């Protein structure tokens, strides 16, 4: 059965869309990420124009992450104060990200930017996560117990504007979470991702937040940041396809609920190594497409006619 997407202006098989939404939703529930880093490339490969894929994904992740955030909140897994600080940075980042996106779209370089951003961010973060989780799994095999050593003081602790985060039992500078939130906001706007793949590792390795509040807080922030990205893209480029978003999210929210149950049964290291593998796979695919000579060197579009 075909469904016509009014903003993308083409029709697609509804079952393909539901299957894509459902499986990505499952993974997002399992890993506590928005799933956009899989969904956006999938949509592009399925023939949706990249700009519409990115903007629509922001809209869909809002739905996927709000149900996840509520589920974690009920288990007490959201640090609202930390979340609010992250959102503050996130809104600024989203605004500028959407501006950069609009400009690059006009000059015809938005696809390149999307690919480069994927390769750089997914490559470095996937690589780090992979190495780290392999190391900790090997340690566990050798029977070493990772003692919760009192962590070393670093330059992060020397920053001013310290705030107390009771839920996370931390007393750190607000500059760090605001910067992270801002970066994630830029990524949400230009890549069509929630930014969980940056946020979760940043919270664990940079902010040293307790793992029980990491995923809930990141989902809480992602909900607001992707909502902002949806709004900015709607205003700047009219690229949010609500029909596509609703179709995807119907399947994705169901998948996410199942994924969350499965994820709770897996160990942290296993989850991280799986996520790292998937991140690296998407990264490799994107990098491959950049260096291989395209079938057709020419592309046709209706965009960018205003500025020459």
């Amino acid at each position: 059965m075909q469904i016509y997407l009014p903003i993308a202006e083409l029709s697609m098989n509804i079952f393909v869309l539901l299957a894509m939404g459902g499986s990505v939703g499952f993974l997002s529930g399992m890993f506590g990420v928005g799933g956009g880093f899989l969904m956006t490339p999938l949509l592009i490969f399925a023939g949706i124009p990249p700009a519409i894929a990115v903007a629509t994904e922001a809209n869909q992740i809002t739905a996927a992450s709000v149900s996840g955030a509520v589920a974690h909140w009920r288990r007490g897994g959201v640090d609202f104060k930390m979340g609010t600080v992250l959102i503050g940075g996130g809104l600024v980042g989203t605004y500028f990200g959407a501006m950069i996106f609009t400009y690059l779209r006009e000059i015809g370089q938005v696809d390149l930017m999307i690919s480069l951003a994927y390769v750089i961010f997914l490559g470095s973060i996937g690589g780090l996560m992979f190495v780290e989780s392999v190391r900790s799994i090997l340690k566990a095999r050798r029977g070493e117990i990772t003692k919760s050593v009192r962590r070393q003081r670093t330059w992060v602790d020397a920053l001013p504007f310290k705030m107390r985060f009771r839920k996370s039992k931390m007393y750190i500078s607000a500059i760090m979470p605001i910067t992270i939130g801002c970066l994630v906001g830029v990524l949400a706007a230009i890549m069509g991702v929630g930014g969980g793949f940056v946020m979760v590792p940043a919270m664990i390795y940079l902010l040293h937040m307790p793992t029980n509040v990491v995923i809930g807080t990141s989902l809480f922030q992602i909900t607001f940041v992707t909502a902002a990205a949806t709004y900015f893209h709607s205003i700047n480029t009219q690229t949010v396809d609500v029909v596509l978003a609703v179709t995807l999210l119907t399947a994705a929210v169901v998948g996410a609920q199942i994924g969350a149950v499965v994820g709770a049964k897996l160990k942290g290291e296993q989850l991280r190594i799986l996520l790292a593998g998937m991140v690296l796979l998407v990264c490799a695919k994107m990098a491959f497409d950049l260096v291989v000579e395209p079938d057709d060197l020419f592309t046709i579009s209706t965009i960018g006619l205003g500025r020459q």
Partner: protein
Amino acid sequence: MKNISIIMSLGFFFCISSLPTRSETLVTDLSQHVIEITSQFSGSELLLFGALERHAMESIQSDEIAVQGLDYDIIVVVRSDPTDLMIRKKKRVAGIWINNENQMVRGVPGYYLVGSTRPLNEFLSKEDQIELELGLENIKIVNENNEGIGDYKDALIRNMKARGLYRESSGNITVKNEILFRANLEFPSNMPVGDYKADVYLVRDGNVIINHRTDLLVDKRGFERFIYNFAHDHPAYYGIMAIIVALSAGLFTGFVARKIS
């Protein structure tokens, strides 16, 4: 001077007198005059049909016509509103392929279909093909400075063909009893909206003797139209609506899932 005017008037008289034997009327129509793009829209197929009336000839030269029947050729062209397009060319820079050069073309059709009884070159001169923009290679595609753009033009046609937006075929118009003809027109789901023109050209002895134009409107309908217009006319409200839809869908399904488990 006198001689010339005599020859001209003679010629004129000859034309007039020959008209009755050469009088044809072309009647064409489409099976639908509006294509509505709705939620289940997955492309469309229309029938363009018509009849050729040859009053005078039938009575005066009926024998000759039976022999000459195949002298008639029919060309069908469907074009959408002219549009502006950007053609970008990739180049390898530091190991990766990036959009490097571009050409903008103005006033080219966003959709173009040409069909004919035989390959165009077999019955119509190249000059006529170019003048009437019949055939994909004869569509006028020039840049802003009115210059030809070589491989960019080929690339545009190639890409539009791949998307199903430019179509060219010969032999797909069936003529019955040398009077009735029909052509199936195919439209893909990514067809642009707007006013289309379906032109039918009747060709005899290498000359276009009649053409007939039928209008076709392609428009989004119902819910699809509402969403599209809402997004473009009130982008801020549309954005807020999209957020509310996403939030309530997320919260609702989360709630349902909790009740089930």
